[in-house]
């Protein structure tokens, strides 16, 4: 166990960070996914793609340049070796399979790898922005989200109820309780987070899932 207590979001971000390989081109959604880089080991450097038109996204360092923002519109920097381009090229990279990993939040994910994260009819319709292109085109799609909604209901469902962002697009689901892989035969529980037992995950997951050999043997 680590000495400092991580909160749920940090536990999720730290686990997602383990999926990254040195040199990966990565696109991070707004919110929790942006916490992932701070958990990368020193020997893993990823290149961040920002859908508003560059690679080499870095944290704000020094003065704010009003012309330099991340995909959330927040002031940012570009790292040495980075490059700017227009929105067309940005989405050619995304749709064309030139982004290795994208990490997005989720409202609902289901057993078939469907993802819903862009609208709640009648309540919240912000638009899909670049999310639909990202889940369609990135080589690996990781959903990083808390296991349950604020009311305690499971966000991992047999079938999504909200309008989809993408159909059959999710590869991996990382929550503060567990890690699931999406396979042709449905969800496979790959890992339990530290201190979490199988019973807890079963209680808090609506979708049915298989349990990996590694967990069964433990």
């Amino acid at each position: 166990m680590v000495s400092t207590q991580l909160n749920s979001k940090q536990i999720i971000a730290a686990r997602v960070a383990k999926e990254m390989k040195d040199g990966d081109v990565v696109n991070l959604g707004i919110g929790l996914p942006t916490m992932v880089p701070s958990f990368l080991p020193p020997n893993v450097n990823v290149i961040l793609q920002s859908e508003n038109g560059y690679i080499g996204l870095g944290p704000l360092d020094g003065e704010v340049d009003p012309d330099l923002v991340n995909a959330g519109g927040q002031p940012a920097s570009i790292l040495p070796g980075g490059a700017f381009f227009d929105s067309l090229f940005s989405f050619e990279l995304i749709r064309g399979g030139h982004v290795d990993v994208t990490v997005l939040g989720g409202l609902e994910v289901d057993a078939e790898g469907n993802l819903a994260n862009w609208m709640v009819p009648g309540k919240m319709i912000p638009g899909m922005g670049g999310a639909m292109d990202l889940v369609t085109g990135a080589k690996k799609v990781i959903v990083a989200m808390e296991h349950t909604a604020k009311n305690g209901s499971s966000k991992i469902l047999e079938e999504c109820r909200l309008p989809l962002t993408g159909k059959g697009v999710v590869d991996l689901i990382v929550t503060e309780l567990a890690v699931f892989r999406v396979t042709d035969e449905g969800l496979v529980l790959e890992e339990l987070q530290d201190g979490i037992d199988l019973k807890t995950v079963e209680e808090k997951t609506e979708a049915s899932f298989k349990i990996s050999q590694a967990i069964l043997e433990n």
Partner: protein
Amino acid sequence: MDKIISKEEVSSIFKDGMTIMAGGFMGVGTPQGLVSAMLEAEVKDITLIVNDTAFIESGVGPLISNGRVKKVIASHIGTNPETGRQMIAGELDVELVPQGTLAERVRAGGSGLGGVLTPTGVGTVVEEGKEKITVDGREFLLEKPLRAEVALLKAYKADKAGNLIYHRSARNFNPLMALAADLVIVQVEQVVEIGEIDPDEVMTPGILVDKIFVQGGCC
């Protein structure tokens, strides 16, 4: 041909019911001076093609908050609560388009294509009402071109021929829109003489730019 125009001349271009494209991503790369000239023109029933509706008081947001727009085609409206309010109240028609698809539709409009085939949106509400085409066993949506009567661009620098250089992430949709409108107006921070921009550095060639508005006045 003198391409440089004043704010008053810009204002006189706009008419009720026009379709307008504007560059920018959450206001970054949006020509604020041209938006302001459009507001002063007091036109209404505009169809606006933008990546997002920015904020109530910046980017293209003021066009929405001042009730000048009847339809917006965008990928994101979440940062401007007025867009959502008008949409729910039935005052504003909103067509949400995935960002990459929006870029491709503008490209198609500007490059003589009849549309593009994209996998983005297959199996979602985005596919509703669209033709699906299977190519080598994979399904694609036929997304149609977008064009406008006027495109409002923001660049960092122009020469007097209209050759443009953009700055940092303010480039975004601007180069695409330069191809996709009948009249292209650019707002720049500085204008230099023809020949002062190295042809290798030009990001949008001047033949696409009809009018140059220099922010803070010029020459």
